[in-house]
């Protein structure tokens, strides 16, 4: 079955690229389903990539690096939750301000740690962890079960989130906060708790998405390494209808475009590479044109809930 090799390799590559989209998409979705519209993804992912890279470099452990990036992301989530849920400030203003902070820190911190002029060191890229038995299955085993840890984690996370949100009582509580906080509040559901916890957890996932990028291929950090994936993650969340299972499949599409842009570039079809590099962004806009109006959006998305206010 040699002729299938290019297809198998391409599908494998998509799963490889899909991780940051899934993580950042689910992170956005978690905050959004409780009504907190996070727009700081790009900044948090940039900072997560810098922190993840540096901590991995100093400790030698990608796991510690990722945890550090998650912690930083969680702190940004906490800040977003505090300013919007407790201080009732505009979610977009705070989100953009946090984007700015993340953007500024993502080049400042490596410069402080490694010096201004020095070239950046390299870290180990993530290795494949084949799953025993399952990876022996022809074709499917090669695509799905010979991947790095994060691919497994991202997919399992999506399934877990789906179970939590749609099959448990707590998931119902959480979703009700984003749909009708007044009703939720009157039933004794703690609106602030759900907004805080989900925004913090979402921030951690977004930080993790950033940390994956330097470990994925390059093994080193470059400024602006995220290249818009944080913004695309927001579009992806709309595309995925703010639900974990559809976001999982939506992510595959965006990862596919990323993979396609790389493959075509290598294939050298005579198209200037700049146009291929535009593909992910143009495709995102195109997708939004077809899905934005129909997308099922949490009713209280982007709105702060004030118990004292009469509307």
């Amino acid at each position, binding site marked *: 079955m040699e002729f299938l090799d290019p297809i198998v390799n391409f599908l494998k590559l998509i799963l490889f690229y899909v991780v940051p989209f899934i993580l950042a998409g689910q992170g956005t979705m978690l905050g959004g389903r409780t009504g907190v519209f996070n727009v700081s993804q790009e900044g948090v992912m940039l900072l997560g990539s810098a922190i993840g890279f540096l901590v991995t470099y100093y400790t030698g452990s990608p796991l510690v690096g990722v945890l550090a990036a998650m912690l930083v992301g969680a702190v940004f989530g906490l800040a977003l939750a505090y300013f919007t849920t407790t*201080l009732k400030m505009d979610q977009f203003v705070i989100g953009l301000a946090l984007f700015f902070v993340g953007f500024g820190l993502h080049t400042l911190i490596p410069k402080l740690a490694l010096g201004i002029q020095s070239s950046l060191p390299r870290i180990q890229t993530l290795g494949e962890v084949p799953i025993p038995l399952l990876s022996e299955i022809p074709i499917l085993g090669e695509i799905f079960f010979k991947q790095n840890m994060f691919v497994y984690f991202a997919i399992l996370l999506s399934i877990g989130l789906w179970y939590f949100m749609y099959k448990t009582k707590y998931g119902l509580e959480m979703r009700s906060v984003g749909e009708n906080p007044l009703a939720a509040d009157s039933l004794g559901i703690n609106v602030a708790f759900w907004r805080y916890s989900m925004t913090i957890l979402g921030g951690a996932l977004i930080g993790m998405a950033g940390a994956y990028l330097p470990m994925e291929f390059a093994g080193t950090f470059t400024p602006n390494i995220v290249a818009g994936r944080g913004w695309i993650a927001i579009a992806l969340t709309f595309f995925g209808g703010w639900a974990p299972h559809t976001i999982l499949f939506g992510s595959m599409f965006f990862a596919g475009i990323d993979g396609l842009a790389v493959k075509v570039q290598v294939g050298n079809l005579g198209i200037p590479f*700049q146009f291929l590099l535009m593909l992910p962004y143009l495709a995102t806009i195109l997708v939004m044109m077809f899905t934005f109006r129909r997308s099922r959006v949490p009713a209280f998305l982007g709105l702060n809930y004030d118990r004292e206010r009469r509307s």
Partner: protein
Amino acid sequence: MSVKTETPTLKKSLLRSIAGQSIPYLVAVVVAFIAVGIFIGLMGFDVFNAYQTILFTSFRTPNGIVQTLLKFIPLMLQALAFTIPLATGKFNIGGEGQMIVGGIGAAAVGIIFKDLPGYILLPMVLLGGIAAGAFWGLIPAWLLFKFNINEILSTVLLNFVSFQMIDFIASEVWADPVAGHPTTVPIGEGGWLPLLIDNPPLHSGLILAILVAIGVYIYTNRTTGGYEMIATGANPRASKIFGIDTQKMFMLSLILAGAIAGLSGSLEVSGYQHRLIKDFQSNFLVLGLIIGLIAKGNNLAVPFVAFFIAVLEVGASAMQRTMAIPVEMVYIVEALVLLFVLLSDVVRRRR
């Protein structure tokens, strides 16, 4: 009698409102500088020397002043491209892309018609940039109107498209083979903006930019159209009921923003570089954003905040050169200033 008693109270209330507006800013700046100073000190750098460099590089030499003004022009226009749609409640995160496309438009006109005399070519170059920028603002406006696409996403994604466009133009279409960095050949000399000062060179785009800022202020604060714009942002539903075409206001504000950002691109090409250079817009996206947010969307405050940020930018790059303190340190100052300015609102609301 009544006139006599009214005038002083009016003056007093105006003074009080200006003081009330600027005191939080002053406190915010001072507190931010102290906080970052402690941090720089803990890192083992000389805080006084660092702050001297940051604050006074712009004013010590003629070159410093001109460098600051050259930064001030695009930064102020970028910030206006953010605050104009903000008045209607829309977020334009695409000022950088609109500036790049404006620069491409200006350069294209300036290169294709390079032999035309100045009195024709110069207006064409400037208008080419404005039109191209406005077109780049029209796309998200149309996507918003037609498909209800969130403007934050469409504007920011178009930035990334424009990054590739400028790379293609500067390294394929009109590439200057001698330049090491993607750069186009120069535009015709007729398209160069006249200089205000020859040495160090300061171009007359400064006057244009200030006129635009005044025009924007007058439009948003003193005309019916501007009033409708602000009303739309304050309460879209009520505005619609009172007969304001809110959709039109959203679109108009985004296109206007694109035109202004496009103008900043053509000023860079026609006034400063005389060619299109990839990455001529260094971090203007985040800087325009922070200026607009610190000014809280107030178009009167934008030029002053933009000048302050330009001073910080010029001072910070001098600080990195001479003291090896990373230039990004001023981002922290700016972020803290924004934080305290925003928090002062919360405090005022509570009282």
